[in-house]
């Protein structure tokens, strides 16, 4: 069942993929990073984050690994698969196209 989130589901996927593109992160860290980088505008609800993460993992865009966290506790780290990297690139360019198109309309209509 989909729950209403602050972010459209597709964009949440894009943010997650981008966030872990540089290095593997666990769920909490992903939410933190998104919040920080967006200047606390985008607050990802756990109720949206984890289902999204598990869905992306089920579809093999990302893979997970249990590892040790900063304070030596067990945590699940997510990273991109090769297919996921390509998916990220295409989604990113789509997003740019879409947003500039919207911008044009908002400016010139």
């Amino acid at each position, binding site marked *: *069942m989909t729950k209403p989130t602050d972010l459209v589901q597709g964009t949440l996927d894009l943010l997650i993929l981008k966030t872990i593109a540089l290095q593997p992160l666990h769920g909490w860290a992903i939410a933190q990073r998104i919040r920080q980088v967006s200047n606390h505008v985008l607050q990802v609800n756990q109720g949206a984050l984890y289902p*999204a993460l*598990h869905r992306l993992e*089920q579809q093999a865009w990302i893979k997970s690994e249990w590892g040790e966290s900063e304070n030596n506790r067990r945590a699940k780290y997510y990273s991109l698969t090769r297919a996921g990297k390509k998916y990220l690139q295409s989604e990113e360019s789509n997003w740019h196209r879409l947003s500039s198109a919207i911008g044009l309309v908002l400016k010139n209509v």
Partner: protein
Amino acid sequence: MRRLQSLFNWFFSLFHKNTLDSGLSDELRFHLDRQIEQNLASGMSPDEARRAALRDFGGIPKFTEASRDARRTNFLENLLQDVRFGARMLRKNPGFTFFAVAVLAIGIAANSAIFSIADAVLLRPLPYRDANRLVIVWEDASAYGFPNDTPAPGNFADWRARNRVFTDMAATSFGGSYALTGQGNPEKLTGRAVTANLFSVLGVSPALGRDFRPKDDVPGAAHVAILSHGLWLRRFGGDPQIVGKEIRLDDQKTTIIAVMPRGFQFPDRQIELWTPARFSNEDLANHGSHYLHVVARLKPGVSLATANADLSVIAKQLETQYPDDNAKLGAFAVPLRDQFAGDVRPALLMLVGAVCFVLLIACANVANLLLSRAAGRRRELAMRLTLGATRLRILQQMLTESLLLALLAGALGLLLSIFATQFLAALIPNSFAPITGANLDPRILLFTLAVSLATGILFGIIPAFRLSRLHLAPSLQQSAGRGAVGSGGSRLRNALVICEVALAIVLLAGAALLIRSLANLYHLDPGFQSDHVLVVRTPLSYPRYQPFARRVSFYDQVLSKVETLPGVLAAGYTTWVPLTNPGGATSITIEGRPEPAPGEHLIPNIRMISANYPAALRMKLIAGRFFDRTDGSHTQFVALINQTMAKNYWPGENPLGKRFKRGNYKDDRPWFTIVGIVGDVHQAALDLPARPEMYLLYMQFETGFDPEYLALHTSVDPMSLAEAVRQQVWSVDSEQPVSGAMPLSDMVDDNLASRRMQASLLTGFAAIALLLVTLGIYAVLSFAVAQRTQEIGVRVALGAQPAQVLRMIFSQGLKLFLIGAAIGLVAAFLLTRAISHLLFHVSPYDPASFAAITTLLVAVALLACYLPARRATQVDPLIALRYD
């Protein structure tokens, strides 16, 4: 690659549920801890930190669920859970489960079996090329009492030459058994003499060797034969070098030139051998002897109607050309399949209809059961809804249960239908050519399964739909199913019972009518007595018995020898015993009458008999005398005639002492004096009226109708004398084949066999239907009693007598029954007309039968109502009112 990985992930999730679930909670707990840490770091107190973190999280169960959903394994997991639960429910109610499964399985099995057979007989393609272009051509001799007469070779030749609608026509001759000798055990093979083009007309080439050629089909050509596949395997061991081998057939050296493919049969299963007919020019000009079977292939684009029109034109031409032979003789064609299936089609269609009824009743019964059970589970379902189950989930679960039931029934039904099909296929009469074996057709089985599944699903879901709109509070408060049930539920159930009763009555009506027909047939006087009569065939082969005197001597000697056997009360020879030949007729001319106009010829059946034959069959003497010792080869030619012949040819006169001769007016033939009138014997079949028939003494002169059948009236079991009789025959001629030793009563039974089968099958179906209906009424009433326990308790407490309670329940049940019966009787009146040609001397509206089945049904209904009603009277008001 990614998709593969995704699929793999899915499988993994399916089987590692627990691991993944605990992993998920670990992950979430980690997240929670980190959040709490962060809260603490930003200055909240530990309590606050924890609360804030939890609040942020939202309902943990909710997104645990969501995460799990994301794994996409939900559907399958739920399904497995439902299946396990459903199986447990079924196990806990073994009575219900067993009954429902058995009922559906029987319906499935019966339907699949009958449909398969009907398909094989009525629909499946015949083993000939373009079989729907093949027709059988008959002569229409209704003026002489033979609406489907076997054509004469002359007519066959003329039709073949003159028609414009057939690509070709071929013929097989009538009767034929070939003695195979010189190769191990002598054996009589059943075969046919055919025109050389038969197989090409049918469009089938031999599997080994070559087809007949026109050169083989002329008198004087070397003898050749073609074997059936079965004969090749059975008698010749499937010898691959068989082509070209020589065998002795009827004392002639015959070369085998071919073997037909597996599964090929013509005209029926028993024919193992084909030889060329070798018609001479005289044969082909003979328009007077009628004994062929003619098959033809329609030209492309020609319809049956066009062909029949053409044949009628040719028949008219022949009538003018040959006024003596062809007067009032028509010709018509019948599609090959109709010819084969014609007899059985009405019966099969009736059985198909009947078995559909049975399936409908079975489905209605199961539906009722499911509805009743669902009504009893309202409380459970209401509770589930309250606890948060979605309606979809509940629907899914009930659906699974019904499906389980239906699948179990399907499996059992499949097993039963295999047996049922084999059993029924064995009952198909042998004369059915192309039926190489009615197998269980998978399409039909699938169809029937689909019907049962549909029923299971439909009646599993309907209550679920209704229940999902339950008002939760009242349902929960309601004592577990003991209050008054809403009328909505029981209306559907009552309707189902009414339908069941109506359907059962129609089936019973049909069965009763068929049984009466059968009884009528058994009581019919066939003109002879068949108990304690042994029948044996000794066909004499030419050229050995060419001289007439030798034949007469053979019969004389055999008769005198077998009559001395202990246990033999009378013995007689005849051309054909009853039920072996519907025809065997020849024309006569009566003394003192003017020459009959063409088409007015008298053509009675003829039988050459010995003096004691009427005694052997215990035929009745109406007037005059039987043949006796005073009649011999040198005395006056005498004849016996049957009642029909007396009535038809000498209306209002006494035929005794009158004379007639064989042949036509101008033929110079000896006169026969009629010395006796005997009762009619049903030659063709027990249910067909007798034709005019005359009996002549075999030793008085030569005809083409030599006796072949020896009939013996025995004081002991007929078959016990078979060997002794054979020995006696062999003591006269050691090389004479003796075949077909059979009690006459068996032949009579065979004749009635298919009717018996129809009657027993329909009765079987009606019995099943009756059983189901009884159980249906019983179940509905039991449930009603259980539902109304509180009400009954109140009534009893207020002073109702047991008799009143009894009446209350009885009236509920009987009301259902009477409505159903009324509908059923009306339907039966309308429908029994459809089987009127299966009936014999019984009207489709026979009041006695209808009265009988109504009585039966009333008795059954009373029985069905009795137990639940009795249980109602035993309701203890204290318990009923207190229990919740």
